């Protein structure tokens, strides 16, 4: 059973990681904590669901479309909300508040669109195969989630470190004024950063909906706070850190159940987050950013 719980924790953690990577990208490059990422996650899952259920699209196509929808939606938020706010010299606080507002609008729209119903991807969206070895069960869907997550993590890392866009994003994360002076088109890089972040969130949304048989307008809610935790524990701006922290969170949740204090899992996660903030605010892998006055 312990082995199975380990697998459960890693799978849950890898979905957190996909979600938190997108979060972290925007926070690192733009210094924006985009709470609406949770709503983008939900909307992508809804788009994927409707494409399969209503239009009968094959899963890979629907997944691609849902991921693109997540990216575009996030890009739209940047263009309509965050850019005007930046141009008017908004503070870190006002961007966070604006993203809370956007999130409320999008979740309310999702509630109306879905009539507050809980849905699921149709049976047989992915083959219902289950492997079992060493008392560990793994479904085909779970395997797809693991492989996709791993591939995406590597892809994101390569994109950030091996491409011109990645370089531009990292330069902006270092200092936006420097990026401008180096001739980087910061506005367009910002748009693509948001696209990428939304696409990661969207991917997480569809995979999660598929794996747990749930598509629901509130499904993004628990991920926002856990995403915060992953960023803080992993360390501001570190891809590896966020992935490690996400899996730690997944495991902590699962093992709180194993040792019989499952009801307190939120206390444990946020307690961990709190302790890190107080005693190691740069997280596990964070560079020595200026987080203290």
């Amino acid at each position: 059973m312990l082995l199975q719980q380990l697998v459960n924790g890693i799978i849950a953690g890898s979905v957190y990681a996909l979600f938190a990577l997108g979060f972290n990208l925007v926070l690192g490059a733009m210094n924006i904590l985009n709470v609406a990422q949770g709503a983008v996650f939900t909307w992508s899952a809804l788009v994927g669901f409707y494409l399969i259920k209503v239009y009968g699209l094959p899963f890979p196509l629907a997944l691609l479309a849902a991921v693109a929808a997540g990216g575009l939606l996030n890009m739209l938020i940047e263009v309509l909300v965050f850019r005007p706010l930046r141009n008017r010299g908004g503070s870190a606080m006002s961007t966070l508040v604006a993203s809370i507002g956007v999130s409320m609008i999008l979740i309310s729209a999702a509630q109306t669109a879905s009539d507050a119903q809980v849905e699921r991807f149709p049976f047989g969206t992915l083959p219902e195969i289950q492997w079992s070895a060493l008392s560990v069960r793994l479904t085909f869907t779970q395997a797809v989630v693991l492989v996709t997550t791993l591939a995406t993590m590597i892809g994101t890392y390569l994109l950030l470190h091996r491409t011109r866009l990645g370089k531009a994003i990292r330069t902006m994360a270092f200092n936006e004024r420097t990026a401008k002076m180096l001739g980087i088109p910061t506005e367009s890089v910002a748009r693509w950063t948001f696209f990428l972040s939304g696409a990661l969130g969207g991917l997480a949304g569809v995979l999660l909906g598929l794996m747990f048989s749930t598509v629901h307008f509130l499904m993004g809610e628990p991920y926002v706070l856990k995403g915060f935790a992953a960023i803080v524990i992993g360390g501001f701006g570190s891809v590896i850190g966020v992935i490690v922290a996400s899996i730690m969170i997944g495991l902590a949740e699962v093992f709180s159940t194993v040792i019989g204090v499952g009801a307190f899992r939120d206390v444990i996660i946020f307690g961990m987050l709190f302790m890190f903030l107080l005693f190691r605010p740069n997280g596990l892998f964070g560079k020595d950013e200026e987080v203290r006055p």
Partner: protein
Amino acid sequence: MTTLLNRVARPVKAASRQAQALVIAGALTVVAGAPSASAEDIKIGVPLSLSGSVAFAGTKMREAMELAFEEVNSSGYLGANKLVPVWADDRSSQPQGISVTQQLALRDNVSAIVGYTASNICLASLPVAQELKVPTLQSDCVVPGLDAIGNYVYNGVRPYESFVLELVDKLVPAKQIKTAAVIYLRENPVFTRLAPAITKAFEKNGVKVVATEAVTGGGDADFSAQLTAIANTKPDILAILTLGGQVGPVMVQARRAGMEKTLFIGEQSFDSADVRRIAGPNAAGAYYPSHWFADSPLPRNQAYVKAYRAKYNRDPDTFATNGYNGVWLIAQIVKKAGSGDRAKILAAMESPGVYETVFGTEGKTKFENRMLTMTPFFFTIGADGKIARFEGK
């Protein structure tokens, strides 16, 4: 007014509805009260959660209650008197629930209140109704303790505890159950009360409860850790005490975690098309009690379901029915009282009497300790996703 407009707009439909309403009214066998001399518009306050987190339930209640008010008025059930609903939205929030109760009682001077949607709002609002001395019939809250609020507060539904316990008594010998496990939603008082109650019921029947796990609410849908822990204890039956939206995913994930043959037992939240759609074949072997279902053979229920389908073009659910039943209960009480006077309505509620409902196997029922009594149905879900009555074999 609404009825009038509807009649003008859709004369044919309205006429047929009126005919149905007469059928329902004719079937009533309540002791007739003294008919009042002059026509009276009796204002009934109807607080519901029409927006916010439980709006999905409140809006369904409102639809069916509109239907019930139309039926009461167009059938002439109260003679020349009419019931005039005063709708109010508590926004699924406690303080707003208290606020609208005060407004209905003091500003609108309603003769009685029928409604409320969510248990936590009942807990906050019903003491206020008691204090302001408004006869009140709550018709959807199932949290324990509402029967003890005071002499003005009556309950048109009852907590599921007794139904679930009855089902356990039937199911354990029929299926030779030896071990059981419980998974319940931590954030909802209905389920935190039900979890220890069902554990006791299992133990009373000689069943060993091998695991109890809590899940959180909101958007959380990953129950794999809890279900892996439970699957490890190999229970014969799993009690799933969560809201409807979570029941389906729990069933699917339980089967996946290795509980292929485990039976499921639950309460009202099992009774929805959503659960069967989301769980699919995984729901096979699920058992639950219900005080109502759409195909219940009671003639009164058949007429109601027909009228609801005609008006809204779909099947009513439990929330709708609880609301509908509440309005007809208050109509019967008002008829006994013979007027909209609060004191007379209270006296009518307090005097013993038999009421016609669409609930339970019997339909006819009465209040005991200010709470409606009823005999539940028991159901099981088959491998084909179809529901069948479970008679204890």
